[in-house]
Structure formats: C-alpha cells, structure tokens
C-alpha cells in the first residue's frame, strides 16, 4: 500500500530516514507531507487522505481526537525533545540560567529569537520556561517571534539575534549555533510529539505505526537528538 503520513515540518530530517528504512523493510510506500502541525491538522479535519499524523503540537492532536478523527486508541506519544538556549558559534554568549539577571544582561538590547510564543509549540514551551524562571516580563518586549522554530534558528544562525530558544534537535543539526544552556525539563510541560492513525484504519498505517515504535526507528530518532517516551 501507499501510506500517506502527515508530519510536522520540524521532523523532516529524522522522518525521511525513518520512512526510507521502513520502505526497505516492507512492501509499503510512504508519502510524507511536511507542513506546520496546524495546517496538517486542519487538512485532516477537512478530509485529507492522511493515514498517519505526527504532530509537534499536542493541542492539535487533542483537537482531532475530540472530533473522533483518529483511530481509537492509536494515539501514542512518540518522541520528546528538550528546549535549549542557543547563540551563534562566533558570539559565544555566557548565560547562567541560575542567575536571573544573566540572560537579560547577555541580551542587552538585542532580540531573543523564539517561535510564536502563543501559537507555535516551541514558543509556547519557551514562554512557559521563561515565566517559571521569572524572566518573562523582563524579556518579552525583546522577543522576536518567528513563524516556526526553524525561523528562530535561522535568525541566530545568521547572527542577527544573539540568543534564541529552540529545540535541542534543531540546535544539534545547525553547526552555526552552539548551545548556551539547556532548560530544566521541569520548567515546562513535557515536550511530546504525539502520533496517531487517522480513521479509517488501514493495514499499512498499522504496520507503519508498529515500525515507529520499533527500536530501529527509535534509534534513528535518537540519532537526530530526540528523546524517547518510555
């Protein structure tokens, strides 16, 4: 069969490897459409021919589940991620997250690159972190919000922003940035990428779901820097 997978765009690098490995092992073909989680979720709502949806955003998966568009009980938390503070490699900012003033001093009057803080998961998590650290009110006027986490990453990679908050996986893949600090995982809700089969269920989709849970697939995800849900 041909399995159509809708996946959050930020998963493209790892998902390309996973699907290639899956296609080697099975006689299914996988088509993956990468776009923002919100766009994909809306399309599924409007009857898109997706068999599997991997979202970067729990909210949108909840939204679909509430409309009974998922194959019951197929939803699982596939991956986790961590949130990091980055800066361009050649600017080597020194920030001590335990000291509140440190981040603000490091920023000076330069912007802090993030994804949309009220809309895009990476931004929402980032805002939560800054709030729990008591920094949000001081920092928020300086936050430059990109439409997705890659945009924030690019701003830092180009050196336009001195600091940015992105996923650990993004920071790892971009050689022009270095991780200044990793935010403690207890300072925000768990960063989870849920996956689910979209109704109606099919053999191919089930096989693919099974494969995603396999240790082989998990290893690929891990190699891209994702954490696994246990």
């Amino acid at each position, binding site marked *: 069969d041909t399995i159509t997978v809708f996946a959050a765009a930020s998963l493209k*690098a790892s998902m390309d490897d996973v699907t290639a490995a899956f296609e080697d092992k099975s006689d299914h073909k996988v088509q993956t459409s*990468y*776009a923002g989680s919100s*766009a994909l979720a809306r*399309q599924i709502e409007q*009857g898109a021919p997706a068999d599997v949806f991997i979202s970067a955003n729990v909210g949108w998966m909840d939204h679909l589940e509430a409309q009974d568009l998922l194959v019951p009980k197929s939803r699982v938390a596939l991956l986790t991620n961590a949130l990091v503070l980055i800066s361009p490699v050649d600017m080597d900012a020194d920030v001590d997250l335990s000291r509140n003033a440190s981040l603000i001093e490091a920023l000076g009057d330069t912007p802090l690159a993030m994804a949309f803080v009220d809309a895009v998961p990476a931004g929402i998590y980032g805002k939560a972190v800054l709030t729990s650290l008591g920094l949000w009110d001081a920092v928020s006027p300086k936050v430059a919000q990109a439409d997705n986490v890659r945009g924030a990453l690019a701003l830092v990679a180009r050196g336009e922003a001195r600091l940015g908050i992105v996923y650990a996986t993004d920071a790892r893949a971009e050689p022009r940035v270095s991780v200044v600090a990793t935010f403690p995982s207890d300072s925000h809700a768990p960063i989870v990428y849920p996956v689910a089969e979209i109704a109606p269920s099919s053999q191919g989709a089930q096989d693919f779901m099974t494969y995603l849970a396999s240790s082989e697939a998990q290893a690929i995800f891990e190699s891209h820097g994702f954490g696994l849900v246990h």
Partner: protein
Amino acid sequence: MIATLGFSPTEWQAIGLSLKVACIATVFSLPFGIFVAYALVRWNFYGKHFLNGLVHLPLVLPPVVTGYILLVIFGVRGPIGSFLQDWGLVFAFRWTGAALAAAIMAFPLMVRAIRLSLEAVDPKLEQAAATLGASRSWVFLTITLPLAVPGILAGAVLAFAKALGEFGATITFVSSIPGQTQTVPSAIYALLQVPGQEGAALRLVAVSIVLAMGALLFSEILARRASKRVDGA
C-alpha cells in the same frame, strides 16, 4: 546520470508538477481574467466595487488564510468541493487544487494587467468597428482583445510567475504530498526545515528562476512581435 542534474526523483516530480500547475493555472484563469477585467472596465453593474474587491482579496490576505478559505470551500467536505466531486472534479489534495490555489492567488495580478490594457484601448476604434457592422462580441474579439495583447501577455506571465512561486495558500489547501501536490516551493520549504540543506534548496530556487525567466523572455518576445504589428512596418 547527468540528466538528473543532481535532483532526486521527487524533486523532478516537483519541478514537473510546478510547471504543470503554473501552466494550467495560467491557461484556465486567462479567459476568466479577461472576462472580469472587461466587465470591470466596460460594464456598469450593481456590485462592481464588490467584484473588484473580491478579485483583489487574495493579494491582501495572508496566503495561509486564502489557503484555509479554499480548504473550507473546495475541500471534500466544503460546499462547492463536495458538489464538484459529484461531477468528478476533485481539488482537495490533488494537483488540480494546487492549480486552483495558484490561479486564485495570481488572479488579481492578471486582472489588473489586463484591465489596464483594456482601459488603454481607444473607444473610438471600437466605435468605428461598430459602424462597420461588428456586434459587441465581434468588436471585442477583433479590436479590443488584439489591442489589449500587451496587458494580456503581462497578465499571463505575472500569473505564471506567481503560480510558480505560490506557496502559502497551496500548502495550506492541498498540503505537500510528494508527486501529488508537492510543488517546487513546498519542496524548497521542506528542504529549509532541514539544517544544512540550503544548497539543495538553492538548486531548486535556481530551477524556479530559470523557468520564470524563460516565461518572461517568451512573453517579451511575443509582446514585441505584437507591438511591431501595431507600431511599425
């Protein structure tokens, strides 16, 4: 193989699809563009300003919004989409949908260009044609339309270029399914999601540019030929 120019099969598919989408979008919207432009220039009707506004809407709205509106209207569950589906015409998640999105996004550009050229046609010539027995539609076909060729060509090439570059509405409406709805811009977008793939993205950008410049040059040549017919020996 040299023939692949280093592009993967899905990328080749995307290039072919983009070309197909841009051509179809241009060709099919052209008659509507001409019609709407003509109506705006020469007719007086109730709701003219509304039509004019409607035509410009895709320009004003963020493409995502346009895409979303298309999804809601032309999706399989949408009012028009479900109706057309009964007639065998499916837009949702097909290349046809990409063409529709491109056509709608390009429509204001096309209409404006044609409208400007139609406005520049001297009504005295149309009158002269009428005194020679030409009905309104014949006047339109033999006088107005040929004299508006510069604008029609400009409109077509703008639409084609826009269709090649359209991304936001397309990916929102028909997603980005390789071989089905993944056009060059969505492929570029996907590549940009992967750090370190800028080079690959750049090659696709180059392809877009080459295609658009080709179309541009072609239209300039046609326009020059058409204007030679009017201006010189």
